[in-house]
């Protein structure tokens, strides 16, 4: 059997292969170093995606994280700024951005630096209608990312009519040096 592609390894890991194909892949990787390493890389990647990038948190994820680790949280109203300080012992924070979200169906988030350069943009992020909140996580290891200590974050409601501004926020962060 020739080696399956990384796509097949990813499909197997996510449970998307038909049973017979999944079994063929499993038997193959038991005897193939290259494919075994490939599927391990995919598995590590899914874990990194889930834990390492700046995610917008769902309410459930926020509650779960807060129950497991010390979590710094700061509230920020539209037009205001808020600051998080993260250290080795307190490496996870959340900016809780407040906005009027009643009736809103989709929220887009965009973060720029002080010069207006786009840092990251996420379309259709999770939000909490009831509390009127969007939760942006901040982790100590973001200090390695090319981000200014000040993020200018815009929340927009996206709809067929082009949407409207929900709020602008200045989110500052200070990180302990590595």
């Amino acid at each position, binding site marked *: 059997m020739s080696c399956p592609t*990384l796509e097949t390894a990813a499909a197997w890991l996510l449970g998307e292969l038909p049973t017979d194909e999944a079994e063929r892949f499993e038997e193959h990787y038991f005897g193939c170093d290259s494919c075994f390493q490939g599927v391990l890389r995919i598995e590590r990647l899914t874990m990194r995606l889930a834990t390492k990038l700046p995610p917008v948190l769902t309410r459930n994820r926020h509650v779960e994280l807060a129950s497991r680790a010390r979590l710094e949280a700061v509230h920020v109203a539209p037009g205001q700024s808020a600051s998080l300080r993260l250290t080795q012992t307190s490496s996870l924070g959340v900016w809780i951005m407040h906005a009027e979200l009643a009736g809103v169906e989709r929220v887009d988030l965009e973060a720029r630096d002080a010069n207006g350069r786009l840092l990251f943009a996420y379309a259709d992020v999770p939000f909490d209608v009831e509390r009127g909140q969007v939760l942006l996580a901040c982790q100590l290891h973001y200090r390695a990312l090319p981000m200014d200590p000040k993020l200018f974050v815009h929340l927009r409601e996206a709809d067929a009519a082009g949407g409207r501004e929900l709020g602008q926020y200045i989110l500052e962060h200070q990180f302990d040096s590595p």
Partner: protein
Amino acid sequence: MAPEPSDADLTRLIAACGTGAVEAEHSLFERYAARVRLFGRKHLRSDVAADDLVQQVMLRVLEAIRAGRVADPNKLASFIFGTCRHVSWDLQRSEQRQRRLERETELLGAESSMPEHSERDVVLLMQCLAELPEREGRVLRMSFMEDRPAEEIAERLGLTSGNVRIIRYRALAKLAFRMDPESKP
């Protein structure tokens, strides 16, 4: 440097020496334990159960080799895979599994949520993710960073959930390749 002994070499050595071939048994364990553990994580969905699987499978395999029950030493990988599949079925049926899951949940609750990682990897991951086509990046973000089910993503993006699943594994493979272009696509 001498080439590593083949599966067949190790099997013959263990069969000949019984419990005396400690190094050969260790080499075999090193070679296959991680593969069995991966199988366990996938099918048993628990690190604790996956560790149990490794212990049980490797023990059965070594006993079979010592007793001369491995008919073709050149097909040891297939033999280990078959054993792994059978033990895994047994474990899945076992009532003890539920208790192990409960124990693991307790352990998880005591752990920090942030695993060790390289900060350089974070930068590379963010860059590679940003280079993906917009829809693929969104599917990965919604799936893994926001824990949204395929059905919800499909609804948000105007796709079928089947399409979302296909985009998800294809994008994941593409991202893995971009993170390590030396590897096979």
